[in-house]
């Protein structure tokens, strides 16, 4: 865990990650910009400040773990891991190309520092629970963080895992719901509304923190509160904006799974300068 000096620094880091996301998806000509951009602050705070991890020793048994349930948002994960030193920054633009370590969805065959291969929505929370249980059995300090999409939590397996986590008091795990209100085909409320979402997690026995998922101070506080919550798993319901940081992608369902054109990339990079 390396405490970053000031807010400005972490905000600049987030901008840099957003530029990577836009550039790599443009270069790939396919991919998922919206859900990558909405998750930037959460991953930045986790990897820069909250998680105990060592990029030089990715297999350190006592490391904290991060699982990206919504695997399609891997450009944000690859960029953050690369900037932390796990993998080369200059290769990010090989995203989705033949032989690249940066596969279309997280794939441990190509990038072993990843904690899980994901891409089929709904499985990340269960995998994370297993990791957290193993850490508990080993008596280790390791904590597990799982990021879930709001569309993703329509999968029944999420709620099976949610019951398990509370019943087995898995308090070394925190889930983050990237509540950007948009899934593949459109707005979550039109496809399969999740509300009342905080009440659902509460009734499943979780400690629930609702916050602005782009507010770095709020994220810091929430992760600290999660670590302090004993006897219960914690979920952060992070209200976010899909496509955050690029005006024409914000709240625009089109950019769930559409790559920007070269011209759009230029516009986006100007906004992210």
């Amino acid at each position, binding site marked *: 865990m390396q405490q970053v000096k000031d807010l400005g620094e972490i905000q600049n880091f987030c901008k840099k990650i957003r530029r990577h996301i836009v550039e790599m998806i443009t270069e*790939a*000509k*396919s*991919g998922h910009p919206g859900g990558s951009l909405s998750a930037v602050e959460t991953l930045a705070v986790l990897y820069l400040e909250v998680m105990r991890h060592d990029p030089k020793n990715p297999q350190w048994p006592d490391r904290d773990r991060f699982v990206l349930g919504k*695997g399609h948002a891997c450009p944000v994960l690859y960029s953050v891991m690369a900037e932390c030193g796990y993998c080369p920054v200059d290769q990010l633009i090989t995203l*989705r*190309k*033949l*032989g*690249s370590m940066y*596969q*279309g*969805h997280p*794939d441990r065959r*190509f990038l072993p520092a990843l904690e899980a*291969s*994901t*891409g*089929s*929505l*709904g499985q990340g929370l269960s995998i994370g629970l297993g990791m957290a249980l193993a850490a508990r059995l080993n008596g280790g300090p390791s904590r597990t963080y799982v990021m879930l999409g709001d*569309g*993703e939590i*329509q*999968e*029944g397996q999420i709620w099976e895992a949610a019951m398990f986590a509370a019943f087995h008091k898995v308090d070394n795990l925190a889930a983050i719901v990237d509540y950007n209100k948009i*899934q*593949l*085909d459109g707005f979550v409320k*039109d*496809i*399969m509304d999740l509300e009342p979402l905080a009440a659902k997690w509460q009734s499943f026995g979780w400690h629930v923190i609702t916050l602005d998922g782009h507010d770095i101070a709020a994220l810091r506080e929430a992760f600290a509160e999660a670590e302090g919550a004993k006897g219960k798993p914690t979920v952060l319901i992070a209200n976010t904006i899909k496509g955050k940081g690029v005006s024409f992608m914000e709240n625009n369902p089109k950019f769930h799974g559409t790559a920007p054109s070269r011209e759009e990339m230029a516009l986006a990079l100007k906004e992210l300068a």
Partner: protein
Amino acid sequence: MPANTKFELKMGAATREAFGKALVELGRKNKDVVVCDADLSKSTMVHWFAKEFPERFFSCGIAEADMVAIGAGLASGGKIPFVASFSVFVMNKGFEQLRVTAAYPPDVNLKVVGTHSGISIGEDGPSQMSIEDLALATALPGFTVISPCDEVSMAAFVHLAAEHYGPVFLRAGRPKVPVVYNGDQKFTIGKAIGLVEGKDVTLLAHGLMVAESIRAAEILEGEGVSARVVDMPTIKPLDTEAIRKAAVETGAIVVSEEHLVDGGLGVKVAQAVGQTHPCVMEFVGIENTYAESATPHELLEKYGLTAASIAEAARRALKRKG
């Protein structure tokens, strides 16, 4: 003039697109047709149906297992439900539900459509690629399993699937594929279709490997080999008579498919050959592995799903046939 020059193989629509269009026509004809989606309507192309018949369209959220069982319930209420998603999700996440709610009880009139089958989806990579769906679907007793090769046959099989009473799995692909058939062709569930006459070897295929088999026959013709090409859109029930004839008349069979060799059409054909008229066989498919991210073209090349590898397999078969 060689028989196979009648195939121009002009690029046509993707089979998922043909499926989406035919579904709308079907909806107009038959008010009992209903559609369930799991947040992929713009990819499976059922969004056209949703637009025209919103009251007969159910958005299930990202919940494929739920969707499958809801479909089975709709069927028992007298509807003709089409439940659609990427093949990898509807078959793998919905498999146990298919088994218990659709295959095991008799007479469940459920239609399951899996799009984005095979590795030709490209850049999204193996978590979205269905290479075992035919092994799963054909393992369900009572299921009819169909993998059309082009837009014409897909459109026909959407209607035939609805007319057939019982559970059906229909396999569709993501990329545009060449047109093999003209509008005059008649299709029947359970019947193979001879495309090119030949006497030395038979090239059997389904899906996008049919066009590749036609191209392979052209390559082989240049080498003085007369290759028969047969499209097998119905994987189950198998047209064992067409297979027996191919074995008897050509003495060598190459089966090609965008699927794992394990559990694919090839092993089923081998079973039929063993039971009727043993002959040499070769298999072109994905060998005991998952693929990766790249362009569809690069992947088909790398994993050997091309006319060149079919021709090579035919040469191996001919050598052993002697």
